[in-house]
């Protein structure tokens, strides 16, 4: 049995203390928020210390910080079941009440149970979700490539259409700011592709000029992306990082606790 210092500390902090806390919380409602916040405080300190302290018990391959990370990946895995039960109960309610569009809830559940069933079968049979030893795909994999991936890629591809319609509407010179947006956008769109060469294609006399202009637009695009855009991005990143770090401090100290459904006083 592995009883390293780091390992035992983790278990004490994140299993023993919570269990004691739950027992106490059953009687004293005030502790139902205080002890979770205290435990969270320790969870937040571990990676910060690990950043600066390379000691093995803390930052080694199975030290406290990487080990807690491994734990929490598992916790997140458990959470999916919560979403799953919510979807099943909502769909079931829709069907039993014959709500508008209820047949589609059947389609949804059918897709879910078929695909989920293949996945569970893969886990139990140790067949996995990839290919069988003979090279043919598992049923899970087959549905993945013929249903899941095409739909995913197609919804993603809708963006090409929405980019065009959004550009048509938003890129209007209504005021100074909109004009700046428009000009920058138009230059970059021209500079990204050999558009000028394409337009000059029917006129051989213009080919050198078009090539040079295209080159120039490419350079201009690069400069815009690099300098003014790079500067604005840096500014946003610095500001946002400070905002995030400050919020992080508040969360770790338990000042910001709304995400747990806790008000100020609780």
């Amino acid at each position: 049995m592995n009883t390293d210092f780091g390992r035992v500390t983790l278990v004490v902090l994140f299993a023993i203390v919570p269990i004691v806390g739950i027992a106490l919380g059953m009687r004293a409602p005030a502790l139902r928020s205080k002890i979770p916040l205290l435990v969270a405080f320790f969870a937040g300190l571990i990676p910060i210390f690990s950043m600066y302290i390379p000691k093995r018990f803390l930052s080694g391959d199975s030290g406290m910080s990487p080990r807690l990370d491994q734990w929490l990946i598992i916790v997140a895995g458990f959470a999916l079941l919560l979403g799953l039960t919510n979807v099943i109960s909502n769909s079931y309610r829709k069907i039993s009440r014959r709500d508008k569009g209820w047949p589609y809830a059947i389609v949804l559940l059918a897709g879910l149970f078929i695909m989920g069933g293949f996945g569970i079968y893969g886990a139990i049979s140790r067949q996995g979700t990839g290919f069988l030893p003979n090279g043919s795909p598992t049923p899970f994999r087959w549905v993945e490539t013929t249903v899941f991936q095409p739909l995913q890629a197609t919804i993603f591809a809708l963006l090409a259409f929405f980019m065009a319609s959004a550009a048509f509407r938003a890129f209007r010179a209504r005021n100074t700011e909109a004009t700046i947006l428009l000009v920058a956008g138009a230059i970059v769109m021209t500079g990204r592709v050999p558009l000028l060469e394409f337009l000059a294609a029917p006129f051989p006399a213009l080919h050198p000029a078009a090539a040079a202009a295209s080159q120039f637009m490419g350079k201009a695009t690069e400069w815009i992306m690099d300098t003014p855009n790079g500067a604005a991005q840096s500014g946003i990143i610095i500001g946002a990082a400070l905002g995030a770090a400050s919020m992080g401090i508040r969360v770790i100290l338990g000042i910001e606790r709304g995400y747990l459904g806790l008000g100020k006083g609780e």
Partner: protein
Amino acid sequence: MRLTASSLAVLTLLLGAVPAGAVAPVTTPPPPLELPAPTAFVAVDRPGDGGSAILLTWTDPTPLPEGTVLEVRRSEPPADEFAALQTVKPGTQRYVDASAEDGKTYRYELRVRGAETPDSLGIAGAVGPALVSDPVSPHDNWFRPERTNSLIASILFIALILSSIAAARSGKPIFIRRIAGLNAIDEAIGRATELGKKVLYVPGIQSMDEIQTIASMAILGHVARATARYGTDLDVPNRDPLTFVSARETVHSAYLAEGRPDLHREDMVHYVTYDQFAYTAAVSAQMTRERPAAIFLVGYFFAESLILAETGQSTGAIQIAGQADPTQLPFFVATCDYTLIGEELYAASAYLSREPVLLGSMRGQDIAKGLLLVIGIIGIISVSLGATWFMDLVKTQ
């Protein structure tokens, strides 16, 4: 045949040193080379690491004859035999032995080794005099010295935020400038109430490990209190299950805080699916079918931002977006009525609640920005005057 990396490296060097197609001379073997010795050979525990590594440094001899390599050898007790460990290209002048084990003591030997020529293939080339290090053993360390600057910066920042919060708690009034996107929140919910339509709140697609999601939860709390006050319907579809859990808690406690648990329904916050685009398709379809009057897109979004915002735009809803990461901001700016940009997302909870603690930490962020501007300008002046050391102060590893 199994080639080791070291023999490959030797081979590589050999191939580089010998012109292609050179014919092996059939005459006498070459005269023994007089190879020089490296200097300043030191072996220490590699500082600032988690153990299991020894750092070797030395100075290459000059001139170093063409086609030579440096050979590192190691002995570990109880055996006193040195065994070849690695050959290093000239000019590197350092080697990390990452195969050392904590608690063992090693000695290292370093020497220049002549390249093997084709006529003496398989025979070790000439070697120069060897330097031997003091015994050394690796161990894990308490501090990474190369991160001193970021440690100091972090401590300063924490101190700044905490003292600003303390100052704000003591009653010092704090001004906050107008943020249009946040003023619009109540307006949008008011319109939904008038029209008798619902408010759709999309909290991004990331989990609770992303701080923008937590900021979004703070804004959701405010939105939910407003819909509770006005008796407007609220709908929060989720992609991430942990965010779903947290959104439920947030909305529930907002309705309790407003004294309207009667208006709260569990299914206001519901789960859709874990896939980014399946979620996007479902939420977009929901927008076109239910036509909410107000749409909030606040949190961390990826490519789906434009699909959601453009679909929402086509339904005629008032749209308010917010994201701290810059990548999706252009699309929100192009399609939404109001967009919270970057740090504005984090300022939202302070702005909306006017709580002294939050206003104080926002004040602390402003002071930090001011300090960064000052450091930046001092830095620019000093590097312009030729002081290159300044860069080392802010460089992180």
